[in-house]
């Protein structure tokens, strides 16, 4: 199955999910994305920048040093307010690869993260 199809499959499994993007945190590039509505490359780039900040920024470094075991950077992050939510997942096997999911409230975050982790593992394995 193509990368885009996997992302489409993930997004359509959660009605409130509007964007699923597969990104490289080291370069800030979005490899592929599935969107409910038409979006711009600038928005996807901004989403990737947010993923870098959430998973590899100063706070996540501090968490890795002071809180999480083994000194690993956070594997997942969720940023939300009253209006929307963005979930980020880092690949277990390729630390620079990540998934970004934009969704509305209310959303089954844990289920979405679990399914996202499965898809990300597959994408990383397929290289």
């Amino acid at each position, binding site marked *: 199955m193509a990368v885009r199809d996997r992302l489409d499959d993930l997004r359509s499994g959660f*009605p409130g999910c509007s964007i699923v993007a597969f990104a490289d945190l080291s370069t800030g590039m979005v490899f592929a994305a599935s969107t409910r509505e038409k979006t711009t490359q600038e928005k996807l780039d901004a989403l990737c920048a947010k993923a870098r900040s959430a998973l590899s920024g100063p706070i996540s470094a501090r*968490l890795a040093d*002071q809180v999480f075991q083994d000194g*690993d950077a956070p*594997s*997942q*992050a969720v940023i*939300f307010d009253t209006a929307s939510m963005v979930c980020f997942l880092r690949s277990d096997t390729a630390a620079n690869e990540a998934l970004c999911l934009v969704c*509305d409230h*209310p959303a089954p975050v844990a289920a979405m993260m679990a399914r996202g982790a499965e898809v990300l593992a597959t994408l990383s394995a397929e290289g």
Partner: protein
Amino acid sequence: MPDGPMEEEQRLRDVLQRLAEPAAPVTERGQLIAETGGQTALTALLREIAETVLPRRLRFDGGMGGVLTCDVAERRIQSFGTGAAEALAEIAIEDAPDVAAALQCFSKAAVALHVQRDIVPHDSAAGALGVSIPDLLHHLAGKDTNTVPKVSAATARAESESHALAILDGATGSDHCVKGQEGIAVHLRALEENWTAGASPDAPTAPMCQIWTGGVSDTFAILLVTLETGRIWVAFEPEHLDTCVACWSRVG
């Protein structure tokens, strides 16, 4: 799906607070629940549905001849119509987009909103699954979060105590430990102290929440709530992720 005890508690608190307020004027069109149309009317309409547990026929009058009638039970709209009660149509979850569009259209056209609550004359919609408020919120254009009842950070913090391992309120300087996880509270204190030592962005104009989880060997996740007045740190078990997001996403 039944609500959790925290939602019930919050709803009960809201209802009691409202009961303590002077009663809204009742006219032949019913009780006034919104003085204007648009989003205010839509919020009031959804709140009315969210507070209806026993089967009731709600007749909403938006003025200018606009009437919307629905049978509601257990906070779900089971049948619905924009005219006479006899014309109510039974609805199911797949009708949620149409119902949401109709509610929005009705609210936009309303100049004020009155409601009449009657006992359902017969159990016509018994057994119908109907649509819930969360079903509708998915389809309401713009998804203005004014439709979601907001709570204060203090309320969310109090609700968090049921699932938190430790909470540190950087805004007040108070911190305390839940379930005896003092070791985790130490981590939160260190995070807050280091934060105040620098690297702090401008204070946000609206609350923003961030959650981080570590690897499989990490037994807790960290929530950071950034408020205008300071930060709140919460450590919780990853299995409570949904509860945590539901709790703090209402803080406005």
